[in-house]
């Protein structure tokens, strides 16, 4: 194995199906456990993955979750072809959400998705074009 080799995992996330959100996160967790990655890192990756999955399910009619596991870090790339985020800075503010109040009362759209993803990852990058889609990239470093 060379230093560049990474394990690639990819999951199709179905839009609108909240009951299946979390399946990609669960699959990634099982893989990371097999690699002997420490529980704290696995927890951070699973929170990032789950929040990202939920975002894609609720806002973007699904998308693709790709995870690259390297020796030193784990890169999560979430790509969707949803409505895009008009103001990323605003979307990053804790509590800000486009979700209607009725949905917020039900526990989704609390405006903590992106802030949580930022909190639990070491690097996060959002590229979004309104009407085209959004790609969120997160890097979680594995402590040596």
């Amino acid at each position, binding site marked *: *194995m060379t230093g560049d080799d990474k*394990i690639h995992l990819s999951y199709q996330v179905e839009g609108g199906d909240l009951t299946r959100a*979390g399946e990609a*996160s*669960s699959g990634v*967790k099982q893989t990371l456990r*097999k*690699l*002997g990655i420490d529980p704290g890192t*696995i927890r951070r990756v699973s929170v990032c993955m789950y929040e990202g999955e939920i975002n894609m399910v609720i806002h973007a009619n699904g998308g693709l979750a790709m995870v690259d596991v390297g020796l030193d870090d784990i890169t999560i790339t979430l790509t969707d072809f949803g409505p895009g985020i008009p103001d990323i800075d605003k979307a990053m503010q804790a509590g800000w959400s486009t979700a209607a109040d009725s949905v917020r009362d039900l526990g989704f759209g609390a405006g903590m998705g992106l802030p949580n993803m930022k909190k639990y990852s070491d690097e996060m990058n959002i590229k979004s074009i309104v009407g085209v889609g959004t790609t969120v990239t997160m890097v979680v470093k594995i402590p040596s």
Partner: protein
Amino acid sequence: MRHSVALTLKKCRGCTTCIKSCPTEAIRVRNGKATILPNRCIDCGTCIQVCPHQAVRSLRSDVREALERFPYTIAVPDPALYAQFHNLNDVNIVLNGLLAIGFDDVYESAASAELLADAMDAWDQDHTTLKPEISPACPAVVRLICIRFPDLLGHLAPVITPVELAAILARRRAEEAGVPPEDIGVFSIVPCSSQVTSVSAPNGLHKKVLDGALAIRDVYLELLEPMRQLGSGDLLPLAGGRTGAGWAFSGGEALSRRDKRYIAVDGIVNVIKMLEEIEDGRMPDADFIELRACTKGCLGGCLNVENPYTAKMRLKDLMGNLPPSAPPSAKARQEVTDILESTEKPEFLPTFQLDPDRRKAMEKLMAIQQLEDRLPGLRCGSCGAPSCRAFAEDVVMGRASVDDCIFRVRARMQHMAGNTDADDYLPAPFRRRKETPAASDEEATS
């Protein structure tokens, strides 16, 4: 660790029913017989319940032998025992029945459950356990957390079960009464395999506190006749009240904890889902989570006689006749708190790790992924593994041969024989003619 779940090879037909229901993928069929991967088994007993040939069972308990082993023998019955009998209206008859078959003392696990609930409530006031607090009462759940959810170990309350606490207190009571320590034998009477395993491998105690565990179904048979002859006497004063008896069914433990917003989950599949959610940061809005591997809680354990639904109805009837639970004395609370202080946090057991060296683990994982892509993905179980992914892992780890996949072998034979129709029935990875994705979609919808 000595597992209580064991196989009778003579009865096993290698039917693969158990391998697919095992929540930790701990069983394989090798050479036509099931075998258990010991460091993955959590003794939940699911395989015991699904085996159509009664080949998997919990080690048989010999009540007579247990009674003869020590001069002074104490029974610690789980309250699930009470729910096994028809037309029983008084728990005392069961306890006196235990004395009648030869036990010298009985310490109700229902009584220690009440002490435990009280001390855990007090514990919460001066200790910080991560919220939601997870119940340590089901040994199979604690083992599951150790191997699969290590990051949740900090959510566990002090790891001790009511039966273990009862055993400690019962032994002290006997010693205080002047029985020589070496003469005392303490036996739990339990509803499930995980509690049998706990005797030799307690999750949170640094030494054994029980001398053995007896299955409810084995004690039941011994009790029937003596109980018929006993009237409702107060020979042995009841120590446990209504609340403690309720620990036998799902939600009973949670109800005994003071001012707790709780969730009670039963059934191992549901337990895993709940733990996954907590791990993903979806913290349920609860203070306390009661988790039980068996359906309906301990009444659903594989060592009971009665089905959990009937048993629950009976236990509720019995509880109506029990006195309300009295709050323990300050002295009793202190004694239990000291025991809680002496418990140890269970450790992460990395049983799923492919290699201690991460670089090697990654190489193995890549080999597994590559092999999995060339397997049919049918989860047929013919190779003896629960899924193609598990099989690929077994091959890479040297636990199986790639030729154990019957579809691979069949494809090779068909292709060797020059059979051109083979594509019609071979799973996708083995077809010679590669389908275009569009064509196969059309086929699926028509």
